[in-house]
């Protein structure tokens, strides 16, 4: 990652800073092995760095670990990032009674699922922008 300019956001851009009055979000990427799944992971990390929420581990959630389930239920909002129509992350959340306020499927953003794990910076921007723009929310 390119070196960040010095800034006055009170942190290394993403960690710390003011939290009062900010929506506390947990972000669960499916982290699947195809390009679209890998993309969800990268987008979740970037969204964390930009202050949208905090990336969390879908695999840990799938185990039903009490701490992460409670954290997801206590969060103001949960964002699910799924790579494809299989909606693995969404189904894991559903099975545990976790209601996602925002849910995005990467292939529905015009990014094709491929046999490779390659994706571009533009692909990441497409996903991250869609999240900030409020796509995948119930109207």
């Amino acid at each position, binding site marked *: 990652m390119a070196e*960040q*300019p*010095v*800034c*006055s*956001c*009170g942190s290394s*851009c*993403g960690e710390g*800073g*003011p939290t009062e009055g*900010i929506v506390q979000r947990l972000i669960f990427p499916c982290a699947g092995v195809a390009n679209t799944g890998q993309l969800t992971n990268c987008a979740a990390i*970037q969204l964390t*760095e*930009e*202050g*949208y929420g905090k990336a969390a581990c879908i695999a840990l959630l799938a185990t039903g670990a009490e701490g992460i389930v409670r954290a997801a239920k206590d969060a103001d909002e949960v964002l699910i990032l799924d790579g494809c129509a299989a909606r693995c992350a969404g189904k894991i959340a559903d099975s545990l009674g976790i209601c996602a306020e925002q849910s995005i499927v990467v292939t529905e953003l015009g990014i094709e699922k491929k046999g490779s794990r390659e994706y571009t910076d533009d692909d990441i921007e497409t996903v*991250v*922008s869609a999240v*900030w*723009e*409020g796509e995948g929310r119930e109207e």
Partner: protein
Amino acid sequence: MTIEVLGTGCMKCKRLLKNVEKAVEETKTEAEIIKIEDINEIMDRGVMLTPGLIINGELIVSGRVADVKEISGYLLE
């Protein structure tokens, strides 16, 4: 309407600018968007934590990124 986006160029500052541009486009707001990157100018406006958003001289957001929906709400007030 004058919108000032204050930030020295980190990821959060860039994202806030993008979100502002999108909100202006979606709400069809007639606005001049000014990017202020100089730390002294930023602090002159009373902003200690970036990114900052000032609309018509009023500080709206400081120290976090506002999403497009939130910014659109401010523009339509």
